[in-house]
């Protein structure tokens, strides 16, 4: 960042922010507008289409990605606030063995119906699996409680997550 300006008049043209965001392991320097949300940058500038937009108000969770290892709604985070941060989407985990096991479990247990919530559910599940090798149904429900699914009624997703975790859950 350059010399500290004292007043608005001193500021250079602020409309574009220069940020560098690490996405799926690669550094991406880019110019973003102030209103650009993280989801816009991921989908439109980086073509990471697994990140879906369902409600635009942070109420459905299907835009969820990991930022510095924490699950967040990418529709409510400004890209300009992500300078120096590490963002992970489903595309970045396709070779990860824990994710592959989870995906296999989702397929075997019919957890993906229309598929629109599936990437977010997988991100939340992967995050849980990392911390909890044998989660209970209750822990799984809490982990996905911020992601809405309209098709499955959640049961087959919960079964999938349990089996997709290392020790097959309890």
């Amino acid at each position, binding site marked *: 960042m350059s010399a*500290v300006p004292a007043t608005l008049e001193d*500021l250079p043209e602020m409309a574009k922010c220069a940020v560098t965001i690490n996405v799926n392991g690669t550094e991406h320097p880019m110019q973003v507008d102030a*209103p650009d949300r993280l989801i816009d940058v991921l989908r439109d500038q980086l073509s990471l289409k697994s990140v879906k937009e369902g409600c635009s108000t942070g109420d459905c969770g299907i835009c969820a990605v990991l930022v510095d290892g924490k699950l967040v709604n990418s529709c409510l*985070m400004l890209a*300009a606030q992500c300078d120096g941060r590490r963002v992970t989407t489903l595309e970045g985990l396709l070779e990860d063995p824990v994710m592959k096991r989870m995906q296999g479990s989702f397929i075997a247990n019919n957890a993906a119906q229309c598929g629109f919530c599936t990437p977010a559910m997988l991100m939340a599940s992967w995050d849980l699996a990392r911390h909890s090798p044998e989660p209970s149904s209750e822990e799984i429900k809490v982990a996905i409680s911020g992601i809405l699914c309209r098709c499955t009624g959640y049961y087959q997703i919960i079964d999938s997550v349990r089996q997709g975790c290392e020790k097959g859950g309890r």
Partner: protein
Amino acid sequence: MSTLELYTPTDLNDALRFLEHDGGNSAVIASGTDLLPRMRRRQISPSILVDISAFTEDLRFIRRSDGTIRLGALTTVTDLLESPMFYGRLSMVREAARLFGAPQVRNVATVGGNVCSAASSEDLIPVLMALDAKLKLASARGERTVPLKDFIIGKRQTTMKPSEILVEVSFNEPEGNSWTAYEKLGRRNMLILAMVNEALILSLEDDLQTIHSARLALNRVSGKIPALAVETSDFLEGKRVTDQTIVQAQKVMESELSLTSDFRGSGEYRTEVAQVYLRRLVERCARHIGGSS
């Protein structure tokens, strides 16, 4: 939002200097979970966002010293939930954090953001009010401390100046014959803005029967403003914990509350539930105090 600009200060002092001159057109943004949806709905239209989300080293902490708990303004709700600090007498903080929003929201929503929004939808405010929290507000000219109970003066209105940033929230740790409890009423179990949020800190005399003090706070007492239920709290002071006391306190509460109706539910229903919660909160606190003596 097309002419929106974002300023990323280098540090807190830089931010304060900026706000000294341009606070009027600006909004401070941390997580944005309250701010951004309101901007999208065109309820507010700041020209400049001042991003303080990176100041975690200075502003994200949970500390305890000399019987005081201090929370940095950028402490997230997940931090509260995962902290070993909020068990026992302070379990209501953890309970409010547990029922707050959903995991993705808890991971970014901040204590400071909750308090400054001053909205009746913010779960932490009644909890902090019951704990008689003090707010440290910083500006380019120095710092000042205000009690939370005096900070919120209207629906989404505070005494904070445009040049100020909330940096810390602190409260005394309850000790001795004290306990806290919290209840939330919503139309579903998660991802829900509460109709009623109610928090109580209760202290008993050494006889474990007489109420030494009670501080009861709700997300709405009159209109849509989070506040202490002063009359009900005052009524409880000095009374013995009996069924009759609770029934009378409920009556005081019924006349103290002036709750409006909206599409989520009627004022009448909210008032009814708030009274039911009062009993539960008092009884739960009393039980724990009796048990922990």
